[in-house]
């Protein structure tokens, strides 16, 4: 779904969303197709659910967002990550 459709369908709500299709341009992440995983009464429970799902599948691209947000403006940061000595 497009963000506009989601905003109409879930007004004034906290959502956990999954980027079904997305691309990167100029350090911005643009979500072309978005799926709603779950709705929440507040951002704390949404964040807790996000962490639970993220732990199980770190490659899923999920975001906690509120539908008051008119546009999904998502910046992109590159990080090589940590490597421990083993």
């Amino acid at each position, binding site marked *: 779904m497009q963000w506009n459709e989601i905003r109409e369908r879930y007004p004034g709500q906290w959502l956990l969303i999954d980027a079904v299709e997305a691309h990167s341009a100029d350090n911005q992440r643009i979500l072309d197709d978005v799926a709603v995983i779950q709705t929440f009464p507040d951002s*704390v429970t949404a964040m807790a659910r996000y*962490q639970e799902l993220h732990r199980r599948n770190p490659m899923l*691209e999920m975001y906690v967002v509120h539908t*008051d947000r008119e546009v999904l*403006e998502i910046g*992109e940061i590159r990080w090589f990550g940590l490597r421990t000595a083993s």
Partner: protein
Amino acid sequence: MNIHVVGGTPYVTASLTHNGKRLALDRVVLDTGSGGCVFSANELLQLDIVVERTDRLYKIAGVGGREFVFSRRLEGVAVGDMEVRGFEVQVGAMNYGFPVQGIIGLDFLLQVGAVIDLDRLELSERRSSRD
């Protein structure tokens, strides 16, 4: 400020102030390879920091996964005597498979002019005066 190397990873203690509260985190990775500072969303709940409706969002893309973070300007970020007031950090899940409460990145280290002494395992403020 001592640097503790545990399992090949360097940790320091960071002290965060916000909303009139103070939070000390002793499992914070010292990482010059990270441009910014990141802290665990679970820990920052103690400072009443939660994602707000219009927070700036970012996707962190790296090796071994991806995560989303939100951005927040904290009233103070300190490592030892080195403090920056009004400092923007990222807040995220930080599920990296080992215990970590945050990352002190290059932006903070540059701003305070940190000297990383890996011989004495000490992190200190700049020695040279600079205006």
